[in-house]
């Protein structure tokens, strides 16, 4: 059953839920209503996630600030927590990205963290430097 049946009724005139049950049958009506609510929740999540701050590339003050803000939002500032770590293989590659805050390009994928790129020549030197090693694993903490 198409969801448009709900919006159609909403547009023209309000309709009691009992009428919808009468039209669709109780099982289908409840199912459609549940999925409608779920779609709303999902789009809300996506809107919120789109406004989430950029994930920090290094361990720094911002790393912990984000965790603290998350816990405060949950109302769980003083409860016990567990930390866990694991690693997995990575496709070893240098990739460049534009940092809009720093207004400069960075190369990511080396074991020393993000490297600032001043100009194309500098990038060429960096990539040819045998001391610049690509990361082969990512270690994640939760």
């Amino acid at each position, binding site marked *: 059953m198409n969801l448009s049946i709900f919006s159609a009724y909403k547009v023209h005139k309000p309709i009691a839920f009992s009428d919808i049950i009468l039209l669709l049958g109780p099982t289908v009506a409840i199912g459609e209503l549940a999925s409608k609510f779920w779609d709303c929740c999902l789009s809300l999540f996506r809107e919120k996630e789109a406004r989430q701050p950029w994930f920090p590339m290094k*361990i720094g003050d911002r790393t912990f600030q984000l965790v603290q803000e998350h816990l405060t939002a949950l109302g769980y500032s003083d409860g016990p927590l*567990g930390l866990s770590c694991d690693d997995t293989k990575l496709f070893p590659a240098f990739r460049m990205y534009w940092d809009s805050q720093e207004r400069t390009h960075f190369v990511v994928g080396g074991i020393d*963290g993000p490297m600032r790129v001043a100009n194309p020549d500098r990038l060429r030197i960096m990539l040819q430097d045998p001391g610049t090693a690509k990361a082969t694993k990512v270690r994640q903490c939760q």
Partner: protein
Amino acid sequence: MPLPKVAPIIVAALPISNNLSAEQLVVYTQQILHGLFDRHIRVVSYACDGTETERAVQRLLVETADSKVTVQVKNPRSGCPDTEVKIACIKGNHVVMIQDSKHGLKTFRNNLFSGARLLTFGNYTAIYQHIREIAFEEGSPIYHRDVEKLDRQDDNAASRLFSAATLEFLSKNHPDYRGEIVYLFVFEELVDAYQNRSMSHTERIKLVLRARYFLDLWKAFLDRTQYSETKYFLSREATDIARMLIEGIIGLIMVHHDHIDGGFPLLPWLHSSEACEHVFGEARQIVKDFSMLDFLYMMTKLRISLREAVLHNKTNNPKARASGYSHTYFDHQGLNLVALATFPSDDDIQAIAEEAADEAESLFALLGIAPSQLQGSDAVQLPSIHTWLDSESDRMAEDDNNWMDMESGNEDFDGDACELQDLLEQEEAGQVSRSRETQGRLMSLTCAALAVTANDMMRV
């Protein structure tokens, strides 16, 4: 995040090289722990899987802690070693070292299936052949694929093997397979102490102490009969993991009881590295061979996936075969928060220890050995749990457990992209003249590689 219906928080992701030692890795962990403690975030556990390096990181964290608190559970049998749990105290916070219980279960399964040892207790043994036999019998809860061409990382297969259904099947159809029955029972219960959603903490302590006393009796039996532990006991790695599982749950309960106010429940199954593996699994579904920048760009999608899994309670198909990891940490069916927020007193624990020792002795008696024979006046004294680890170098055990260290390479990652990249780099470096047809083919492959990379970037 040890709370039901709350998605884990991804704290940090760092690019590292393949060959970092435990000494180098522990620096990152300390940096994260110190940063969290400076913000008054109360971390009470540090969990990881059972690889040699990860366990070494945990050992170093305890050794380099500001101070250590030792919790002791007295052994009810005189002359037998007590259970001692060392808890790291960092910046005034107590941190318990935890082994991932589902990894532990797979380790116990792999020890049972190993041809390098013959698990021997009393008049019985626990062997792969018997498990293979029952897999082919009618009505068996174990699938053929669980015993043939087996996937050593298969969570579902390990759960099926160490399940009440398998125990029931064995006890009904093969009551003479007592070695397997007791082995499966003891270690299933040890992992259940972490995974059970409704059990009281008192019961959890009993299960882990029973495993501890059973292992003590097993070790004493081998010492008395002068059987080699290398061949007839658990591997060195499995022994260490068992010790950490036993001590971990006691440590967590003690820290919640003694150092945490506010009646927070303890949900031990959430103190694991399962959430980390879940993130990696979700990331590989978006881009199979992801680079560091892909992973960072993916973070928003990964957070949504985690929340979706937690809110929807999306567990994998438990009947799946050879399917590797199966994440269940967000499954909270049967949750009993009142029981999980009630902690036993020291006196209760001592009473439980007595019960656990009695049960371990009953289990050993079932295997044909009267515990009094091991503890008599002319018997050797039961060895300390620490001596399990000081035995002679166990080469076979190491070979047998190499699968654990290789585990990160088995996460559905066959390195196709790496291989293609290497070939392209070799091609660029080489100055070999080729036919027009070969050059055309190479150009097509290069374009294909670029198209795959562009596709991955679009998916992120």
